[in-house]
């Protein structure tokens, strides 16, 4: 790993250099929220706080076309109509700049589902291959951060191509991947080999600011044990308003819907983010709904992240501990509290039906 140094005043020049040949997404303030938007000259990245919205859309857009289709009438026989379908993969070269380790770790959760031996999602895969992550290590924890609970840390390099650490006067810039190393050839970067100790101190302080670690290793079994304890689920979901903010703002939530849009003889098949906290998510054509109440739906959301996914994927939790589902929940539902209670509170025997 090569250590370089970027002086703060050279940051705009480096971003401009990176943006010369690709889309560079940076966190910027838009009204009251910090969101990722393409960099252009004059844009001021917000790097002193976690973005409200993670850069999930860089690889998994909120809405994208999977294919276009066209109905074509046979001029000889207007009753005969053929249909043509075209795949629409859109994956411009991109750099995501200034995301936090938790934001990037989210894609490692996606990878096991979207690009695995059973199935490969070509849209996801193309963007994953064309996107680099220049990640910013955190200096300080925010009040809902818990990345250290799920095996990560404020300076976790997993999934990043380059790791930046804020140090006096600028950033220590370290390559994590081979592709990241190529970004370090910029003449704007100075030698940083003597400043690694400074960066390590930042990493240590940030980890300490997160406080005590709580280990959720018993969560997968305990959540299953509580599956039929609907009193527990009604209790922990009582204040939930089913708004779905937790899913849309989560770097590891990957559920989607597919719908067709047609205009005249043409149209598109569209994939959009979907939300397991919505009643309609599992409503079947017959009218039966296996998850009819918000208690059932929150149970699935927490169960997926802390039980089902780790059971399938070598114990890895489908949660990166970014805390957005806690911070940005309008009624402060706290997933940490739910998982802890599931592990620590005795399970009630199911009522006989």
């Amino acid at each position: 790993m090569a250590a370089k140094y970027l002086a703060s005043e050279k940051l705009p020049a480096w971003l401009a250099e990176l943006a010369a040949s690709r889309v560079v997404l940076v966190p910027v303030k838009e009204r009251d929220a910090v969101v990722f938007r393409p960099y252009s000259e004059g844009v001021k990245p917000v790097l002193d706080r976690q973005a409200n919205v993670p850069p999930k859309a860089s690889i998994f857009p909120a809405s994208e076309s999977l294919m276009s289709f066209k109905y074509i009438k046979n001029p000889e026989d207007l009753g005969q109509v053929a249909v043509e379908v075209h795949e629409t993969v859109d994956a411009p070269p991109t750099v995501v700049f200034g995301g936090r380790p938790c934001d990037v770790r989210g894609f490692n959760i996606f990878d096991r589902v979207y690009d695995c031996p059973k199935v490969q999602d070509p849209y996801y895969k193309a963007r994953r291959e064309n996107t680099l992550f220049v990640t910013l290590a955190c200096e300080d924890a925010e009040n809902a951060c818990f990345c250290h609970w799920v095996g990560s840390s404020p300076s976790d390099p997993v999934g990043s191509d380059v790791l930046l650490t804020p140090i006096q006067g600028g950033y220590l810039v370290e390559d994590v991947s081979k592709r990241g190393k190529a970004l370090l050839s910029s003449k704007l970067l100075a030698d940083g080999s003597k400043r690694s100790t400074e960066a390590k101190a930042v990493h240590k302080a940030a980890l300490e600011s997160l406080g005590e670690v709580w280990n959720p290793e018993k969560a997968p079994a305990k959540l299953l044990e509580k599956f039929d304890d609907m009193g527990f689920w009604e209790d922990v979901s009582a204040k939930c308003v089913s708004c779905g903010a937790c899913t849309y703002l989560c770097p590891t939530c990957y559920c989607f819907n597919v719908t067709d849009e047609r205009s005249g003889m043409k149209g598109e098949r569209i994939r959009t983010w979907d939300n397991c906290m919505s009643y309609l998510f599992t409503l079947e054509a017959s009218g039966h709904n296996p998850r009819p109440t918000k208690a059932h739906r929150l149970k699935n959301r927490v169960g997926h992240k802390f039980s089902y996914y780790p059971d399938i994927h070598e114990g890895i939790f489908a949660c990166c501990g970014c805390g957005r589902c806690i911070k940005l929940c309008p009624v402060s539902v706290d997933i940490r509290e739910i998982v802890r209670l599931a592990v620590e509170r005795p399970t009630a025997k199911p009522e006989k039906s």
Partner: protein
Amino acid sequence: MTTLPNPYLPEIATVVETFPETPSIKTFRVVLNNPERMKAFSFKPGQVGQLSVFGVGEATFVINSPPTRMDYLQFTVMMAGEVTSKLHSLNVGDQVGVRAPLGNWFPYDTLKGKSVVFVGGGIGMAPLRTLLLYMLDNRKDYKDITLLYGARSPDDMAFKYDLPDWTTRKDMSTTLTIDREAPGWEHKVGLIPNVLLEMNPSPKNTVAITCGPPIMIKFTLQALQKLGFGDDQIITTLEKRMKCGVGICGRCNIGTKYVCMDGPVFTYAELKQLPNEL
């Protein structure tokens, strides 16, 4: 890792035949437009497919023709929503999308040398039809074949064109039932689980396969247990809302299992292992 084909891209197919089964159920026979792909297409009894009308959307149906009869792929559709309504309005020559085969299948291989009792209710006969026809086309591989097929009324009974064969052939035993007396009905009257108990099939070296409305399945499972069928001698198929069909989009999971990939076919023993979320 080798690159797999795009799992969301449907094959274009032409509707070659359509006919009503009941007032709310219609059957479509489709053929893939690419003759080589149609020739190479293979599936196993019980597998499903996503049928789409471009501009309206996709929905999941079992391929209810057997893999031993590959002139067409047959789908039987009950009108329930937007996509199924549009499917009901299609005519011969219309173009649809097919993503198939998806999911798992009936264990037709391990059933060899065993007797099979089919218990189908209403549209739930569709997946059973595939396996039943497959077994009849490979009759020597299986022992006794018994079918109990029920519907609310004679009008609600699908696959009427199969019934003359199924009720008369010597190498299977067929019982048809409806819920209430109807003029001209010459078969049984009574709810499926009750008729099944009357039939009293032996569980010895036998597997029961059932599909139908949830309430029918619930009481049929109880009847089968009364008759002495073990949990691994009962097989059913699950219906769930599905979108991607390849285990990603997240709505058809029951705990760690995805009905679109790990199902739709499950033994009762497997179902009992899953969280209670049917």
